[in-house]
Structures are given as C-alpha cells and as structure tokens.
C-alpha cells in the first residue's frame, strides 16, 4: 500500500494542476488557433475558412505599425534597460555607503504598476502640463520637448517609461550576479595589478553570461506582452502611432467585434514569443544533459 502511495501520490497531487494547465493554457491556445482560421465576428464560429484572417492581418498598415513599434520598442527597451541596469549595478558594487537605501530607491519603480508609471509619465511629458511647460516657465521660451504628441517620436516615450520602470530590477539581477563572482579571482587579478575596468570587462562580466540571458528573457517577454503601459501613456496615439501587437489585438477583439482577426494577431504574437523562448529553453535543457 505504502509503495503504491509512494509511486502514485505525487502524480495524483500534480494531476489537477496538470489538467488545469493543459486545458486553460494549451487548450485555449489550440482554440485560438482554430478561431484564427475562421471568419468569426462578434461570436466565435467554427467553420474553417482558410488563412483569410492572416492575409488581412499582413495587409493591414496598422498591424505593420504595431510590429515596427514592437521591434523599435523591444530592441531599445531591452538594450537600454540592460546597459543602465549593469552600470547601476557596477556603481553600487563599489562598496558605497548606505548601499541598501540606494538599492531600494532604484528598485522602487518596479513596485508600481505599469498603469501608474504610464500615467505619471503622461503628465510629465505632456507639453502643456509637464517638462516643456516648466522649462518655458523658467524663461527658455523656445524649449520644445513634444515627443509624446509627435507621431514620429511617441514610441520613444514608451521606451523611456519602460526603462525607468524596469532598469532597477535589472540592476538587482546584475548585482546578485556581481556578488556571486568568486572573490579569490578578483583579488588575484588585483594583486597582478590589472586595472579595475579590465577586471570587469575580462573577468566579471563574461562570467555573468547566464544572468544576461535571464535578464534578456524577462525583458523580452515584458516587451512583447506590453499593453497597460501604452494604454496609460499614449492610448496608442497620436493616431495609432504607438500601437503594439497587444493593443491591436485588444482593439480587434473588444472594440471592433472581429474575433477572428484578433485571434490571428494573438497567434503571431505567440510565435514571436516562441522564437525567443525556444532557443533559450533548448540551450538550457541541453546544458543540463552535458
């Protein structure tokens, strides 16, 4: 009896969550995939109609804008947040006084929801209320900073707010990484008279490769599913110049009653995520086998 329990109890305990995940994650991915091949409008319909939704999607200039924005936003957001996070971590690693306080300050934006971040930055960047108005009030009448209302630059304000929110978190990740590097190696290098920047660039940073990968994965999925930040900061505007795939999908599903179109955009978003995550998982799993 106890043998039977020993072999079957773990399975029995895990079964409910396994079934729930199969149904609510993979089941609904399958459902969405099915719907993306139909002409569903207000309500889902299940007769397959081929790839018409995908053809519509790729012919839509708004989807193009959304994908371009995802590329611009994703790249800048990930690169800047990582660089800034690394820089902050290295500075904090110099055994500064009251490190705990400073670390908390930098980490704090992470505690805010994206909606709060977006709204605060919307006010700061609004030309009539925020920064531009304030600097003009100081007497610099020609000062302009209208990125938020300029369709060509509005996406960079989303990057700005996103970086502000996330770089503290990346800093914490890197700081933990820096602390985990073997002190002995660093001391040996110092004894050899190697300059500090060389110690960082040739010893510490290369040994932190796994941390870079984790940070990249976390930031990449934040970027792809980014929705609330754009809604709060720009509402997708001016025009639809700051639309991201997630806001496109929402508009199609909930404002326009075009479920088929929304499903096809969701599938493309999922493929983008897979394109990033699968190589990561592959390398992780392979590393364990070695």
């Amino acid at each position, binding site marked *: 009896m106890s043998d039977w329990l020993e072999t079957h109890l773990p399975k029995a305990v895990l079964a409910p969550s396994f079934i729930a995940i199969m149904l609510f994650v993979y089941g609904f991915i399958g459902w969405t995939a099915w719907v993306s091949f139909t002409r569903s409008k207000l309500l889902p319909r299940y007769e397959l109609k081929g790839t018409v939704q995908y053809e519509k999607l790729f012919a*839509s200039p708004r989807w193009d804008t959304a994908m371009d924005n995802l590329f611009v936003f994703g790249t800048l957001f990930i690169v800047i947040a990582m660089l800034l996070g690394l820089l902050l971590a290295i500075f904090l690693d110099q055994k500064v006084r009251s490190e705990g306080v400073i670390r908390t300050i930098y980490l704090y934006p992470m505690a805010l929801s994206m909606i709060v971040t977006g709204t605060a930055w919307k006010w700061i960047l609004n030309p009539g209320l925020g920064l531009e108005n304030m600097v003009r009030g100081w007497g610099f009448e020609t000062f302009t900073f209208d990125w938020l209302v300029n369709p060509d630059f509005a996406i960079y304000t989303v990057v700005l707010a996103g970086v502000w929110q996330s770089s503290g978190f990346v800093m914490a990740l890197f700081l933990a990484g820096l602390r985990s590097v073997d002190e002995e190696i660093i001391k040996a290098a110092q004894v050899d008279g190697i300059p500090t920047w060389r110690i960082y660039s040739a010893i510490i940073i290369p040994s932190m490769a796994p941390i870079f990968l984790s940070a990249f994965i976390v930031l990449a999925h934040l970027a792809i599913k980014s929705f609330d930040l754009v809604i709060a900061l720009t509402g997708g505007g001016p025009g639809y110049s700051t639309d991201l795939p997630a806001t496109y999908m929402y508009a199609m599903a*909930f404002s326009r009653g075009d479920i088929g*179109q929304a499903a096809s955009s969701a599938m493309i978003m999922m493929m983008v995520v897979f394109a990033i995550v699968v190589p990561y998982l592959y390398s992780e799993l392979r590393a364990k086998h070695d």
Partner: protein
Amino acid sequence: MKFTAYAAVSALALITGNAALAGPEAEVLHYWTSGGEAKSVAVLQQEFAANGGTWTDMPVAGGGGDAAMTALRARVLSGNAPTAVQLKGPAIQEWYEEGVLADISNVANTEGWDKVLPASIANHMKCEGTWCAAPVNVHRVDWIWANAEILAANGIEMPTTWDEFNAASEKLAAAGITPLAHGGQAWQDATVFEAVVLGIGGPEFFQKALVDLDPDTLTSDTMKAAFDQMRTLRGYVDSNFSGRDWNLATAMVMNGEAAFQIMGDWAKGEFLAAGKEPGKDFLCASTPGEGFLYNVDSFAMFEVDGDDKRAGQDLLAKLVVGPGFQETFNLNKGSIPARTDVGLDKFDSCAHLSAQDMNASSEGGSLLPSYAHGMALRGAQAGAITDVVTAHFNSDMSSADAVQMLSDAVANSY
C-alpha cells in the same frame, strides 16, 4: 457542445423555476453610468416599476460600451442572455445574424411606431422586416459649438460654409485665440471627419462614401478635398491636443481659451452643467453644409424564455418609445426624442433647432447615420476608416495617399 447543451438545460430549469413569480420582468444591460445618463435610466426604472414590472439593473461601465459588449458576449455564449440590451446601429443587425434577438413587432404595431418615427431611424430598429429594437433618443453629431463672447469680440458670425469657417479661424489665430478645441482621440478625429465629409460632399456623397462604401467615391477628388480640409483644421488646433478628452475640449470653449468645437450634442450637457445659457454664453449650429447625422441609442430585445420575461420586454419596449419617457429621458440626456410627435416646450433652443432639422432632413432624404458613432457601419469597417482618418490627421500624409489608404483599408476589412 455537450457542455453548452447542459448549460442551456440548467438555465432553462432556473427560468421555469422562477416562472411562478407573476408580473413582467426585465434584466437590462446598459452602459449609462455617468451622472446625467444614470439619472435618465433611473427615470425608466421608476416607470417600469410603476407599471408593475420588476427591473434588474445590470450596468457595465467602461470603454464606451466595450466592457458591456464583452459582458453581453459572455452571457449569450452561456445561453443566458439579458432581457434587453443597450445596442445601437448595425450592431443590432450583427446580433440578429447570430440568431439571438427577439421579435417585438406586436408592440410596435399596436403602438404605431411606423407613424411616429422617422423612416431612416425606424429602419435601424428592424431586422428583416420585424421590429427587434426600440429607439430611445436622437443625438445629433454634426454640431459646431462656439463661445459667444469671443465671436462677438472678433466680429465673427457662426460660419455656414467651410471657407467661412477657415476665414474665421485665421482671424482668431491672428488674435491669439485657439480657433478649434479638439481632443486627439481617434473617435474625435472621426467625428470631425464625418462632419467635414458631409459639409464638403453633401448628403448624397456621404451616403455613397461612408454608408455604402463605394470604392470610386472613397478615392474621388471630393474625398481628397475633405482630407485637405482635415489638414487645414489640423492647423487650427493647439499643439497640446493629443489624447485630450472631449469634455476638456468643451471646457476650453467655455473658458474662452478656444472659439469652436465640433462635437455631438452631449457637449451641450457640459455647457448646461456649468450654468451656461444657449444663445447667450454659447452658440450652437449645425456644421457647415446641409444634412443631419444622427446617433440613436436603442434597446435590443434578446430571445428569452418565460412569459414574465417576454411580458417585461413588451412593457419595456412600450415605455421606452412612449411619449412621457421620451420627453423626461431626453431632457436629462441632452438629446431629442426619437418620435416626432413629442412636444418640445421644455427643451432649449439647440434642441428645437435639432428637431426642426431632423424633420426637414428626414423629408429631404438627408437624415444620415453617423459613421463615427457606430450607426452607419459595422465595427470592422468603421474601425478601418477611423484608422486612416486618425493616421492622416496626426501625420503629414498627403490627401492622395490618404484616399488610397482609405479604399485599401475598407477593402481589407471584410
């Protein structure tokens, strides 16, 4: 599908279980949740109760009805539709095609709706010849609001052509006043756009372009001229308009920061709430050009089981279109009654103008549905047009590119 069948059966069991309770019953899904709107709905609730009905309120706020539509979808999919739902325009037909709307023709025929409603509005309430919805009010969309004091101080009359509007705006801009108060949200851009299309192209052009979606009309020179006028208007808004809510734009006109606003007659509610008087503090006129763009709120009745619920639908439909409710409700809401035989003694001068124009344009065939407010087109097509309009207004796109994009977007949206 087993699951749905089971859900339907259990829902049926619940309903028949309740059937013992006598009297009309209605569960009403709506998104009238802001101050004036909530007051208007309360009027209907009281009347419903006074006629012996039981009203179950189901208000869903948010997203200009998007949240309510999501709730509706969930209810219909689970086989438990509300009795009546606030729906409007082609959305009524879309739901009808899903096979879930009820027929209320007996009420409509007894009450003689055909005689008291303008024909084009009545057509929205019919699904393949039977009545499936009841109209509540008529909002006019193509209004232009102005600050009376600013116009007087600059010697400007209310413009009757777009050229006059442009000349007046140049004069105001030279005097350091923002000519046009506008909020850079897609639906507001669309609201201005349809007023411009109606003014520049005329009612027939509007019908062909934004109702019938005729491809040649969409790429015509008249449409280019409409986009040119949009580009001109872009020069008359302040630099900080992006993302502004419509009521803040109204406040700019009220406070004398801007001269004009192009917005539906819900803007009147803002003026009145601030204690301003029509004709004295603020002026109302139709946007340049002839025609009347309407935005009609209505209740669609869903297929439900149980005699008390059906009785509730009939009672609700009768009350909603009844003259008493049409008067009280619209006084609260700022719109005008949908039926033409209601006395307008208690309404203000703007509402009188609106009612006059509605009757005149109904006879002249220029009573047209608003595309920007979901009366003329289905969600996907209206959305596709709005995308182009807002992209053009917020960039330096040429009018030629814009009309090309417009016809591509419409073709791609089916």
